[in-house]
């Protein structure tokens, strides 16, 4: 047996403050973008059990490898807002203080530097949460492209341990550890409050799983990080919480069709191709990438991101080719995996628009044979909205 997963330990891997904790829990560790991260915890059931815990109950992830960049001015005169508007594609002016948005930083070509979550901390104070593998590139990009703006750029990546508590019962777990009433916090909003006695902790109702949940940002020293991790597990015990690795983080986000940098989005893929139109506000004014995106929009798409479901036996994997009936290449799989929730083999792929209609048959080249797949609606999984059940209840 030999795995095609890339071998680890080529250069010195970076570690989060919870690295020793993961090893004590018997996590299987992998090299993820230069970081030594837990992919799953076999002793607690492994990837599928972790995935199901998040869909049906609650799980906790160490996501401290994510980076954080603060863009701020001292006197709230709009310099930071102007800088954020210049380097990101969503409209940060629409954010209230305490609100966050999915957005992206673009190259002038309209392709991706990285996708980011922009949090408005104050009138002229923003926190960008960025990907682990693109940290250095991102911080350099932000510094270079905000140099002419009147704002301060701080890299805070190593000052936070970031935990993601995800799943329908996440709110009950975190509620036990904080005085703040979490219920009024809406999806993609955040607040500051004490967690386990730690003051002024950023608590955001965000995540990368397609499930309800929270991300908290605590001081990154090992003692604090380990104590908090243990308290979250303790508080979650009655709800069946388990530690979750990057393996299920990937299957969860894939089911929810959330983009992963280097896969669905990259420096070679533009906003329209990735189908992220609703996060790109062309009407907000100029921003890096806008003029080329306008041109690309007028020119039309050559490829578009679609969801696939395997019909024939076989699992589509990242970078496998999509082919037509004759075996000619027509596209590429960006992410593919068995879906633990749906018990089907699913994938995201770039295909020509002419082959992207729902129900269209395509083929995936799997080793030396092609397996039939079809285009299906996305997201593959969408959680039931609580408000709907509440509405139904009140209608009765």
């Amino acid at each position, binding site marked *: *047996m*030999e*795995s*095609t*997963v890339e071998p680890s330990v080529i250069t010195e891997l970076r570690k989060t403050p919870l690295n020793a904790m993961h*090893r004590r829990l018997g996590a*299987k560790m992998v090299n993820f973008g230069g970081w030594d991260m837990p*992919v*799953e915890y*076999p002793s607690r059931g*492994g*990837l*599928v059990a972790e995935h199901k815990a998040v869909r049906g109950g609650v799980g906790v992830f160490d996501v401290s490898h994510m980076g954080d960049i603060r863009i701020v001015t001292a006197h709230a005169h709009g310099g930071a807002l102007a800088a954020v508007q210049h380097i990101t594609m969503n409209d940060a002016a629409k954010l209230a203080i305490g609100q966050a948005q999915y957005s992206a930083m673009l190259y002038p070509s309209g392709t991706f530097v990285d996708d980011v979550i922009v949090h408005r901390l104050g009138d002229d104070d923003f926190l960008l949460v960025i990907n682990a593998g693109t940290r250095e590139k991102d911080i350099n990009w932000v510094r270079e492209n905000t140099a002419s703006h009147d704002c301060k750029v701080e890299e805070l990546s190593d000052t936070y341990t970031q935990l993601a508590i995800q799943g329908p019962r996440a709110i009950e777990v975190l509620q036990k550890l904080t005085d703040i009433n979490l219920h009024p916090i809406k999806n993609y909003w955040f607040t500051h409050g004490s967690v386990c006695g730690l003051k002024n902790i950023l608590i955001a109702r965000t995540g990368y799983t397609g499930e309800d949940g929270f991300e908290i940002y605590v001081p990154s020293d090992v003692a604090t990080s380990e104590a908090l991790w243990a308290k979250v597990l303790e508080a979650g015990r009655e709800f069946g919480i388990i530690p979750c690795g990057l*393996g299920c983080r*990937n*299957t969860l986000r894939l089911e929810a069709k959330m983009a992963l940098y280097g896969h669905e989005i990259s420096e070679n893929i533009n906003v329209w191709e990735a189908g992220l139109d609703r996060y790109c506000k062309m009407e907000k004014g100029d921003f890096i990438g806008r003029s080329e995106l306008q041109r690309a929009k007028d020119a039309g798409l050559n490829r578009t991101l679609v969801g696939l479901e395997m019909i024939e*036996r*076989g*699992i589509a*994997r990242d970078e496998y080719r999509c082919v037509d009936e004759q075996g000619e290449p027509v596209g590429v799989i960006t992410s593919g*995996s*068995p879906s*633990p929730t749906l018990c089907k083999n699913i994938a995201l792929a770039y295909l020509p628009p002419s082959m992207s209609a729902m129900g269209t048959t395509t083929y995936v080249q799997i*080793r030396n044979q092609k397996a039939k797949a079809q285009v299906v609606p996305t997201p593959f999984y969408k959680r039931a909205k609580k408000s709907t059940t509440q509405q139904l209840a009140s209608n009765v």
Partner: protein
Amino acid sequence: MTYPPSYRYTQQHEWIDVKDGLGTIGITDYAQHELGDVVFVELPKPGTKIQVGKSFGTVESVKAVSEIYAPVSGEVVEANAELEATPEKLNSDPHNSAWLIRVKLADPAELAKLMDAKAYEAYISEKNKEASA
């Protein structure tokens, strides 16, 4: 889990159990543990010739695709059809009911190059030390 003393083992974590010139081949408990939840198995049809050290099939977990290498050369006489519907058996019973293929050995002398259970156990305990280093 114990490694049956009558089996022979490869460095790529396959086992072979030979009786009367017929070898039953599978993957070891160590291998299934490394893979995680097995969700897909692809095996050669009876009549296929396999060659020592060459890939003859694949086992996939949710996360990864792994090639399976032939511990010996020979001709496939049977593939474990049950694994198509119940690949998870590879996690629960890798040394017995979740065997992969049966082969008629081309050259029984090839067996001498494989590890016995003791040598294999020593080999994986070194691997585990590396992993936790």
